[in-house]
């Protein structure tokens, strides 16, 4: 047999493919096939046959219509309502979390005594933000005197009163701010990884840029807006996407999928819900990218 000669370059490419092969197999097994099947199930009425196999009957868009017209969630809510609530919630909270984590990163990037301790504390949300931990720490009982005293909620009325009397903010903004203050522990518990990302980004900024700005006489305010923030645009994109995906993972829609498929035994509608959920995420991400590309000029060369 003649020996096949492969050039070094091509050999390298083949080795490269060997290295991604496990991931590619996983992609076919655990991603594309399930995705195709989910879309297929969503157009079918799926049942279990007497022999044990699956029976599929094509029903067209009936599952989707059922999902929004007939079915209700495990909390007896309509799905249109759930989706709009979740989307609003995510679009409001994502910027808040990202800004919070950027703020944390800037704070601990400053050199001061006890910086090490501050870093330890500011990264704790990586551990404390796990869903299990949040669920466990949360107080389940409610409505008692003592509970009100130890719960994570402030007195809402006080903040609103304060804002209305001493600032010129309209009522809606005041309520929004007081809600933020209410959820500050929950929001902060989601910031761990993003803080880490931002801190890494802050430290990768070339120090000479700051020196130049100082020599040119820029104030620290100008330095932040003209140097720090533009150089962080790529990272904030990553942080935004990460937060977004994370929020969707923790949203209540994901538990509904399981509820439909296995508690209600309605695989068709459950799949339809999955597909809608999936497209919702992708659509929201596109929207986010669109907004971000308007607001910040992304540095595509670095990607």
């Amino acid at each position, binding site marked *: 047999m003649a020996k096949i000669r492969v050039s070094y370059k091509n050999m390298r*490419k083949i080795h490269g493919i060997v290295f*991604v092969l496990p991931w590619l197999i996983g992609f076919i*097994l655990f991603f594309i096939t399930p995705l195709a099947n989910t879309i297929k199930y969503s157009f079918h009425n799926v049942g279990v046959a007497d022999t044990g196999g699956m029976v599929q009957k094509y029903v067209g868009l009936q599952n989707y219509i059922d999902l929004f017209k007939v079915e209700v969630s495990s909390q007896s809510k309509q799905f249109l309502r759930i989706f709009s609530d979740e989307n609003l919630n995510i679009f409001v909270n994502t910027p808040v979390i990202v800004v919070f984590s950027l703020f944390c990163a800037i704070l601990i990037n400053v050199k001061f005594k006890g910086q090490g301790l501050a870093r330890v504390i500011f990264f*704790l949300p*990586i551990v404390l933000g796990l869903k299990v931990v949040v669920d466990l720490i949360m107080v389940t009982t409610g409505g008692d005197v003592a509970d009100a005293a130890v719960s994570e909620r402030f007195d809402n009325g006080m903040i609103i009163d304060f804002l209305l009397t001493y600032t010129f903010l309209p009522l809606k903004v005041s309520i929004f701010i007081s809600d933020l203050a209410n959820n500050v522990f929950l929001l902060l518990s989601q910031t761990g990884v993003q803080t880490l990302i931002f801190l890494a980004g802050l430290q990768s900024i070339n120090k000479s840029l700051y020196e130049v700005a100082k020599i040119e006489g820029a104030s620290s305010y100008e330095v932040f807006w003209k140097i720090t923030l533009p150089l962080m645009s790529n990272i904030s994109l*990553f942080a935004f996407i990460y937060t977004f995906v994370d929020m969707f993972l923790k949203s209540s829609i994901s538990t509904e*999928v399981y509820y439909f498929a296995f508690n209600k035994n309605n695989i068709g509608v459950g799949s339809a819900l999955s597909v809608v*959920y999936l497209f919702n995420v992708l659509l929201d991400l596109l929207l986010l990218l669109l907004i971000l590309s308007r607001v910040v000029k992304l540095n595509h060369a670095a990607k």
Partner: protein
Amino acid sequence: MLPNDMRAVREKMKKTIFGLLFFSLIIGMGFAILYPLIKLAPVVFNNLEDLGNPDVIWVPEQFSTVSFQAAMRLAFGNGMPILQSVGFAAVIAFIQIFVSAIAGYSLGRVDFWGKHLVLFLVILTFVVPPQSLLISQYLSFKHFDMMGIMTAMNGGTIDLLNKPYTLYLIALFGFGVKQSMFVFIFRQFFKGLPKELEEAAYIDGCSFYKTYFRVGLPNAVPAIMTVAILAFVWNYGDTYYTGYFHPDGPYLSLKLATTFAPANVNHILYAIRTWYDVPGATTFAFDAAKQAAAFIYLLPLLMIYFVVQKRIVENFEQSGIVG
């Protein structure tokens, strides 16, 4: 007073005020992050019958460890589940690192055909929530047939659900907890590594694989550390993959989530009342036991976290997630 002096005083004032503001911000934020933990302390050490008493909020009148005992008895047994969970998380994290690192190396270093497509797919799999694929994944695991290979070999499909190796299998093929992100981190890191090292290795006669294991991997310690920490924490806290694909496994996160589910309040209260002879225990006792369990659950994580925290930032800086 000389105008120069005035300026110095003003500068000093400015610095003090700024420092004061800065430290109050740091302390405030730190407090807000720690508050849930601080709040736990008086509850878990309190006498169970004092819980809910509005007079006893921050300082327990009678110190007691009953909630810890209850938590241990309910969820942790003899301590084996902790070891098992830590071991499981470590093994899965190791597999995830290995697979993500080779995929990331290839994506960052080798110009193979369709590289950009694969990179796009990695990002796509990162943004698609695994829950949306749950149903068909579950069904396909029930009758697992690796593209027809299984049927050809044994003449039938195998049931992968509730088998201990299922989770390892998922991680081995790159779809464990947030593994696409790990692939991306490794890709970014290897992309930023200087080429000269590899070229030198090649000239010295190293093969592709030898270059990777001798040159690529040892230089990737920052990325490996970063991914290791994240992978360990996330796998330790995972209830999704463990809950759906191996619900009978000895995973602590899962066990805690099911034991302390809101539906179990009355069972647990009954157990606590009879075991520890506290007939006056209210639903607050359930919370106390739950939070004591959270405390024990967090212990290994916190211990590891304090050991590695010094290096976590520097490693993350160098891990190239930034690029």
